[in-house]
């Protein structure tokens, strides 16, 4: 008995220690070293230099220069969060870390390896992932994929390698879903993109365990502009997980990545994101998927960090019977303005979509749900369902829902509901009467509130998200 009790105490201590460590997982800083970086700001010379550094084909340089021109001609968005404190002249658009891309963790330089060790990436690779990509500042430093998947024709590599080895495919797909003309930050991405991942899953192949890309921004005042391109051929299936983090500096950082997802007929792609950018980050990311006949795109997102976010994953349901499922949770604390949501365009008959969005705001944080569902004339028999729930944990916070629903044919079934409220005092009282402290009761209710997202994530990521919620509730996340 004594041994069992002792063992239990040890287990509890280990859990507490692990939890204590968790608060520092994301916000450790490494010395800022690099092998090359551009000047701050955005000029044609910088764009040409990035392209030359990467030894890119001419078409890509031309694309970058065209995007730069578009960037200079487009206005900053006037709707949404205030981004007037973001000055492009202060942002360094390219920082190459002190290493080339490696295929083995042992070859990754110690300081970078230590970063990803602390984030748990090698451990996750061993236990629950089919492949891993790790990007440090502007470049991917490590990439691996299980040999068995390679044998099946699955490609998972960094974007620069993909550009060299699969140039025709990249040229056919690069920024076709998100053209540089789309908005100012898409144009910026087209001009200075760097790093990212390319995934190709051949027809009929089921990648049963997830692939993960992790993006770590270490350089103060830098931008990260990774490009993710995933092609899932007809009947194939894959789960891709994206993780993001950065230490906090007292200067603005910018993340303007771009994700383009091509989902074939009868194919399924699940794209999960747990974002925990530091609170000096402007996260102005663009993600878009196009889905073929009876294909499915599942978005699972947890947005925790950043100073300001504008993130609205968009699904274009192009083939008959295509389906989109969006499950997202956003948690805004002090000084954060998280403007998130989802956009779905129904372009074909019998397409279906489900949007389930949850947000929590605390300590003056601002959560905005900004979404859109468009059912076009061709989408006869389309079904769409939108549900937004917002929870406010105090009277300083703000929570808005801004949905737009456009229906252009009569044969549709559309439902939308939204609610804003606080944690019910009765529920807190009930849990406290069962022995929980008030804080524990509130944390339990918040975790119950976001359960649909937790359930959609693999166990390791659900645990990570619950830990992030605990930290946000304690206010200890910086």
């Amino acid at each position, binding site marked *: 008995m004594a041994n069992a009790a002792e063992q239990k105490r040890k287990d509890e201590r280990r859990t507490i220690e692990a939890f204590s460590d968790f608060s520092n997982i994301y916000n450790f800083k490494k010395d800022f070293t690099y092998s090359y970086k551009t000047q701050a700001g955005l000029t044609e010379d910088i764009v040409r230099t990035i392209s030359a550094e990467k030894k890119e084909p001419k078409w890509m340089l031309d694309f970058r220069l065209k995007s730069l021109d578009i960037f200079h001609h487009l206005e900053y968005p006037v709707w949404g969060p205030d981004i007037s404190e973001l000055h492009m002249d202060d942002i360094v658009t390219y920082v190459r870390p002190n290493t080339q891309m490696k295929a083995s963790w042992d070859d990754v330089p110690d300081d970078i390896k230590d970063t990803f060790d602390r984030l748990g990436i090698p451990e996750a690779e061993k236990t629950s992932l089919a492949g891993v990509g790790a990007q440090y500042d502007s470049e991917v430093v490590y990439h691996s994929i299980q040999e068995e998947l390679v044998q099946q024709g699955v490609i998972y590599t960094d974007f620069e390698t993909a550009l060299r080895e699969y140039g025709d495919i990249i040229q056919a797909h690069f920024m076709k879903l998100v053209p540089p003309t789309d908005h100012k930050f898409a144009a910026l991405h087209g001009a200075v993109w760097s790093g990212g991942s390319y995934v190709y899953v051949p027809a009929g192949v089921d990648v049963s365990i997830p692939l993960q890309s992790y993006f770590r921004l270490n350089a103060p005042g830098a931008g990260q502009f990774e490009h993710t391109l995933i092609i899932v051929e007809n009947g194939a299936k894959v789960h891709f997980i994206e993780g993001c983090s950065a230490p906090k500096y007292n200067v603005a950082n910018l993340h303007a990545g771009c994700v383009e997802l091509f989902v074939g007929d009868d194919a399924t792609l699940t794209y999960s994101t747990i974002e925990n950018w530091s609170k000096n980050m402007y996260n102005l990311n663009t993600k878009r998927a196009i889905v073929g006949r009876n294909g499915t795109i599942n978005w699972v997102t947890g947005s925790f960090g950043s100073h300001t976010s504008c993130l609205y994953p968009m699904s274009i349901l192009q083939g008959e019977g295509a389906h989109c499922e969006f499950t997202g949770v956003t948690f805004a604390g002090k000084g954060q303005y998280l403007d998130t949501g989802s956009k779905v365009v129904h372009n074909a008959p019998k397409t279906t979509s489900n949007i389930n969005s949850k947000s929590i705001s605390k300590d003056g944080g601002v959560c905005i749900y900004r979404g859109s569902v468009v059912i076009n*004339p061709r989408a006869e028999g389309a079904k769409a369902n939108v549900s937004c729930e917002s929870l406010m944990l105090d009277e300083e916070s703000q929570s808005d829902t801004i949905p737009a*629903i456009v229906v252009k044919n009569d044969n549709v079934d559309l439902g939308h509901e939204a609610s804003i409220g606080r944690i019910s005092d009765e529920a807190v009282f009930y849990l406290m009467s069962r022995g929980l402290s008030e804080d524990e009761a509130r944390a339990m209710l918040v975790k119950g509130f976001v359960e649909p997202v937790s359930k959609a994530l693999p166990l390791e990521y659900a645990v990570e998200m619950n830990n992030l919620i605990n930290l946000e509730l304690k206010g200890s996340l910086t």
Partner: protein
Amino acid sequence: MELEPLPERPSGRYTPQHQCEGDVSLYFYQGNGMPDLGEFQGANAEALERALRHADKGCAIEAEAGAKGTARLVYEVNDDHPTLNRQLRITAGAGSDVTVYLVFEGGAAGGEVNFLHYIRAEAGAHVKIVKVQLHEGNVRHIEHRYAETAEGSSVEYVSAELGAKEAVVYYKTDLLYDESSFDSKSLYLGKDKQIVDFSYWIPMQGKKTKADVAIAGALQDEAKKAFRGTIDFLRGSKKAVGSEADTCILLSPKVHSISVPLLLCKEDDVVGNHASSAGQIDEDTLFYLMSRGFDYQGAQAIIVESHIRPVVDALGDGALAERVLQTVRERMNSQG
């Protein structure tokens, strides 16, 4: 909202049919009889400016404290007076209960109604405006309505938008004082290339304030409906409750339904809900009705009628309700 300019037409000093019952007074005035409307923007800046600065003939309805009564106004557009650029000012004293019935009818090529309301409900007062709009399809109907509520007062709107080529309504109701409330129910039936455009703006700042907006209707042919509702829970609106609902039956493949129901919230101790839905008539219900001897159009009409019935019942006037139902039936039966 952007509107195509219409040709300038002379506007006379037409006096609408009017009638009062109970302890309310009604009189007409020339020029601008509106108080300062602050930041009220109306449906369209140019139209609001015209209604403020160049109104033809305003109508004022007033009730003393504790008074109770009704007023009826019938505005008709015809070739003699194709445009009506009007004001209506309603002042309800503390604890009063005022109901105003407004009927808009008639038509004229290039006709336009540009109507600005101001409502002031003093503490504990109740103001109800029942509006039935039955213009012919050659009239543009624009309505700007701004209401200020005092503590414990309530403003209630019941509207039927059944006519006009373009029906554009913009309602702003300030619920800035405790326990004030706003309730609005509207029905519409869009036909041909008709545009029906509803906008609501409800800032809520008082404690225990309450707002409820519901729109129910159907679209046929190539009609277009837009609903923009904004419930804004401002800091201080503790225990406030707000909800907005937009339900639309789609009867033709060329209709266009837009719904933008916003909930803005800066106060944690509130309950806000919105819901919208759009869809076809349930096939099982249709089949059931047809199996009981109704033809397809008749069955559709019954379902649409049952959908809008709660709004019709809330009109609170049997003759008006019957007129609305008759118009709905006629429009449904003439469906191409």
